[in-house]
């Protein structure tokens, strides 16, 4: 008996991350050649800053999707974390306290999503469609529709500082990506997330507590949306009830472009990170090459379809 491993070429072809990196590298190369402005430190760091919120939220989303669910409430959670924290700050509470409460509340919303899915067996799409709307309603209701402005500098620092010219949100993003990657790939909980998403019934037959796994995944998604939302709010300096509207689709798209299958059980947060980067670089490219911003959604849509088609084709073939 021998245990042969697939050859290098086959392994590379099967490796979604490798394929994504090639695409990303190709885009960077092409843009560097086509424009003189793309490959400047300034532009790169702006790109990084601009996609860090989406990327961070997409890490939590990735855990949910790999676990076989979906979290449509991510965009609303981003806005809500910002509003709660902003209102507490204006009421005079400390930055640390305001942030903690903001995050705790989105974590709680995630927990609620998880409990609805695992205890009352609501389909994740329905449960989070509901919370998406409920939380957005709270965003409008609590602010009467007005943006919360005049946030203290000590809070805005979070979204606007650079460390050695690297934006703080980008550094936080990388740190959280490493955290999620370790959680998913190295821990027992991570193994169980893949198991539940890959085959929930099989997971329950071998004694995995599938409800617990799903609840934790949704809770983390709530928390990560909150973190992304706070960084967004700190960067913009205003917490608007309309903020992050429609972002849930970008967040899901980042995961999907990154090779995380919507059927669950597959993919990695690195894929989501690269997926978010590809979307942002595409947006940036369109701007640099002089296309009006109105065309961006069309380009993103084409990329989503293209990425998933390549992924499906690749899986069938090899």
């Amino acid at each position, binding site marked *: 008996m021998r245990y042969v491993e697939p050859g290098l070429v086959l392994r590379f072809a099967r490796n979604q991350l490798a394929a994504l990196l090639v695409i990303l590298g190709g885009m960077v190369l092409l843009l560097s050649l086509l424009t003189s402005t793309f490959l400047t430190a300034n532009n790169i760091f702006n790109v990084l800053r601009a996609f860090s919120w989406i990327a961070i939220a997409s890490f939590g989303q990735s855990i949910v999707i790999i676990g076989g669910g979906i979290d449509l409430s991510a965009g609303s959670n981003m806005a809500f974390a910002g509003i709660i924290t902003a209102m507490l700050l204006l009421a005079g509470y400390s930055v640390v306290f305001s942030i903690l409460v903001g995050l705790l509340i989105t974590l709680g919303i995630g927990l609620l999503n998880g409990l609805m899915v695992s205890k009352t067996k609501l389909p994740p799409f329905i449960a989070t469609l509901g919370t998406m709307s409920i939380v957005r309603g709270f965003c409008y209701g609590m602010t009467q529709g007005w943006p919360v402005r005049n946030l203290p500098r000590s809070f805005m620092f979070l979204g606007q500082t650079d460390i050695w010219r690297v934006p703080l949100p980008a550094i936080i993003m990388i740190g959280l990506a490493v955290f999620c990657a370790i959680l998913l790939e190295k821990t027992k909980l991570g*193994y169980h997330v893949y198991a539940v998403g890959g085959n929930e019934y*099989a997971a329950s*037959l*071998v004694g995995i507590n599938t409800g617990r796994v799903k609840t934790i995944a949704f809770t983390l998604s709530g928390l990560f949306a909150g973190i992304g939302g706070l960084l967004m709010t700190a960067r913009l300096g205003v917490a608007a009830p309309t903020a992050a509207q429609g972002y849930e689709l970008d967040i899901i798209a980042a995961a999907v472009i990154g090779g995380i299958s919507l059927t669950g059980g*597959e993919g990695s947060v690195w894929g989501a990170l690269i997926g978010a980067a590809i979307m942002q670089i595409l947006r940036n490219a369109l701007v640099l090459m002089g296309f009006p911003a109105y065309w961006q959604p069309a380009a993103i849509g084409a990329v989503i379809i293209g990425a998933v088609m390549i992924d499906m084709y690749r899986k069938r073939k090899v």
Partner: protein
Amino acid sequence: MEAKVFASSQPILSLRGISKYFGGVHALEDVDFDVYPQEIVALVGDNGAGKSTLVKIIAGVHRPTKGHIFFQGQPVEIHSPHDAQALGIEIVYQELALIETRDVPANFFLGREPVKGRLGIFVDRRKMVEDTVRTLRELGIELPYLRSPVRYLSGGQRQALAIGRVMPWGGKIIIMDEPTAALGVKESRRVLDLILRLKEKGCSVIVISHNMRHVFNVADRIVVLRGGRKVGDKKKSETTPDEIVKLIVGADML
């Protein structure tokens, strides 16, 4: 009762008056079922007779609607697969219970991944790979790719993996629900040999099969279910394949 034949030793596992209702479906009705030490029991019956439901009750997947379970004479409640494992009950499911998107070691240790470090949360991947390779070698199971998703394995290879992964846990009662369903002649022979070896090592085996040749090859005793009821419980030496087939389909069918 048939059990008297085996009165020389006490059953290691006894089910008494087990019924299982899924809503209106009576999957099992008042079933008594015994397993003796070092015994191979074949559980037979037509599709939907309740065989899988019975072994899933033993494995902690289903709770019986009525009835009691005794382990070595003591009443026990088996609430989860982990409870069953703690009693030394291992099962190979008819559905195999594999995760298609995960590789061989992840499936081999599915649900009981070994951990390392003080926190007890980090999976010991090295140990997983080493133990998987060693066990598969010992069992003579050949799998082409260890680190590729299980979906690239053939049906027979998957079944071999599902059987192999329960072996290292030192179970006293091994349940196999149609373990040869996807296997070729040579591979089926290997599984039957494995069942006999398990008995020699001191295990009891419950095997479900539709293949009378396999059943008569290995079983010490044959239990027949029909429509959720136990309709036969025969020592192999005191019955024939014909009689078992008649019990399976019911006399009225002949």
